[in-house]
């Protein structure tokens, strides 16, 4: 039942946090699309709003956050306007998410197998015995060597990588059309990182599942994403097919991100650091939130609105003076 448009289309998403001293505009006009079966990388440094975007799509924002504008259309339904019942039907079965710090994201006092079963039991009509065998299959499917043992294990008995696998198994339990994987590799050792990303890629191909891969590391996404969405300080600053973006980034921030991520071809000493940090969101911000860190900034950059310039096929950049 593939529709005409993209699988997921986030449009003009704005979101703010209520803080003690006023509101903080964390997302401002965020927009991107994820095509059916495609892998899209969402990249940016910590605090750029990647995770909060994902949480908004899933509808599990913390109570202090509030969506002020925008839509997130998934298979023709605006998730941000849908009622709770509809959302619950989608969540975990059509669209699912894995979280950072997998161990904390699993119920500490329930066997992990049971937690996967909870999801299956809720979204399917499988009998308990069938749900159990499906769970064991899923655990085997995420390359857990001893599914029977892990089924009855508690999160604290498993390694971080194992917990991440369990969570992936849980996320794909009902064969969703879209998997949002939030920093699936962070906090794991290098070998496990590669294996986990490999696993997500394999599962996506097997099930024809689209993936929104969130990472702060552009290097990790390079080989795996079809397209990349670059975020900075609550703005989408550049979107492009991965190859085009890596070969010829047009936003100064993207260029810096690429230059600052370690690659075999570049010595450690040549790595670039990006000056400054994400700005204080409580302050009155210029249209381009990167301008004060940018060495190409010009007076015209402080003129609203933030531009969206099409610079190539499927390649958009939010900059007045693109590279």
């Amino acid at each position: 039942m593939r529709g005409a448009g993209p699988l997921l289309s986030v449009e003009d998403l704005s979101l703010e946090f209520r803080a003690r001293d006023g509101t903080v505009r964390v997302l401002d006009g965020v927009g991107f699309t994820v095509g059916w079966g495609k892998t899209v990388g969402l990249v940016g440094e910590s605090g750029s709003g990647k995770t909060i975007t994902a949480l908004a799509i899933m509808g599990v924002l913390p109570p202090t956050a509030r969506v002020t504008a925008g839509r997130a259309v998934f298979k023709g339904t605006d998730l941000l306007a849908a009622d709770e019942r509809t959302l619950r039907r989608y969540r975990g079965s059509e669209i699912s998410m894995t979280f950072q710090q997998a161990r904390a994201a699993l119920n500490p006092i329930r066997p992990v197998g049971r937690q996967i079963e909870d999801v299956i039991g809720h979204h399917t009509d499988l009998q308990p015995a069938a749900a159990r065998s499906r769970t064991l299959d899923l655990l085997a499917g995420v390359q857990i060597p001893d599914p029977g043992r892990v089924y009855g294990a508690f999160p604290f008995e498993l390694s971080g990588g194992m917990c991440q696998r369990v969570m992936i198994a849980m996320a794909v339990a009902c064969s969703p059309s879209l998997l949002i994987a939030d920093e699936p590799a962070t906090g794991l050792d290098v070998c496990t990182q590669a294996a986990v990303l490999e696993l997500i890629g394999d599962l996506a191909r097997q099930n024809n599942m689209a993936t929104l891969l969130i990472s702060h590391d552009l290097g990790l996404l390079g080989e795996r994403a079809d397209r990349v969405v670059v975020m900075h300080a609550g703005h989408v600053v550049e979107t492009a097919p991965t190859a085009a973006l890596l070969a010829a980034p047009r936003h100064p921030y993207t260029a810096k991100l690429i230059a600052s991520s370690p690659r075999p071809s570049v010595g450690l000493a040549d790595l670039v650091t990006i000056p400054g940090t994400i700005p204080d969101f409580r302050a009155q911000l210029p249209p381009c939130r990167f301008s004060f860190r940018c060495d190409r900034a010009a007076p015209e950059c402080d003129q609203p609105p933030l531009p969206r310039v099409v610079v190539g096929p499927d390649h958009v950049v939010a900059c007045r003076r693109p590279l």
Partner: protein
Amino acid sequence: MVGRRLATAIPGVIGVIVVTFLLNRALPGDPAAYFAGPAATPQAIEEIRTRLGLNRSLPEQFVLYIRDLARGDLGHSLTTGQPVAADLRARLPASLELAFCGLLLALAIALPLGVLAATRPGSGVDHVTRLLATMGNSLPVFFTGLVLVYVLYYLLGWAPPPLGRLEVFRETPPAITGSYLIDSLLARDPGLFLAVAKQLILPTMTLGLAALAPITRMTRAAMLGVLASDYVRTARANGLAPRTVLYVYALRNAMLPVVTTLGLVLSFLLGVSVVVEKIYAWPGIGAYALDSVIASDYAPVQGFVLTMAVVYVLLNLLIDLLYGVIDPRVQIES
């Protein structure tokens, strides 16, 4: 695992025994002269002193004390003329029944209230709950008990007079468990059961009210914490039903800190029960100890303190076991 837990309770019990022994020796005045009575000759007092072992050194006396304890000998009550151990045994069920009912009432109200408040932060329920928790912590139990007596007995006449476990003319149920509620049921006497329950209403309310605030407070705080946790977010992101999220994912985890707090609540509850027993002329061990205090009869007080401490240690043991049942992490560690 039970054995291991029991072992951890041993130092506590030893401490309790040493303290009660020291308290006994700190008694002002001469116990021997006291036992002998006002008309005794110096010779008779000396004789009693020897018999009680009061002429020996402190360590020797301690050994004697331990020996007596091992035999279950807690001395004699001057007031009742009975062995203290027998007196306590006869009165303990009354105290336990009351304390248990009070705790049950408190839990029955506090847990749902705490959960409700936590799931609707900032709502009316939440504000009422928080107010209740703060007010409840400030209530002098002996005063709330009296107010209940005044309102429910004197003004409204809904409750029976605050005079013990049963009205005077009632026959007590055949003693099987010692709990009048259970015993009257075992005797298939619904009328008696009702009479017992009626007497229990006021003291149970008083005790329950006292324990309500800390449990509500803790439940609310624990639920708030758990509802903001990553795993509850995962459960919601997986579309699980709100009931499943609330009970299977949130509440069970929130119970862990609540169970831990229960130890402190019980300490408080056992202390407060003495006051409640006094107000309602409840024939438990607290009232027994207070009667003995008035008569300057120390052995029952000592026995009472010892009994309460042992009950408390056992209850804490129970709490530990309960915690282990809920939290798989504990079993692995031990």
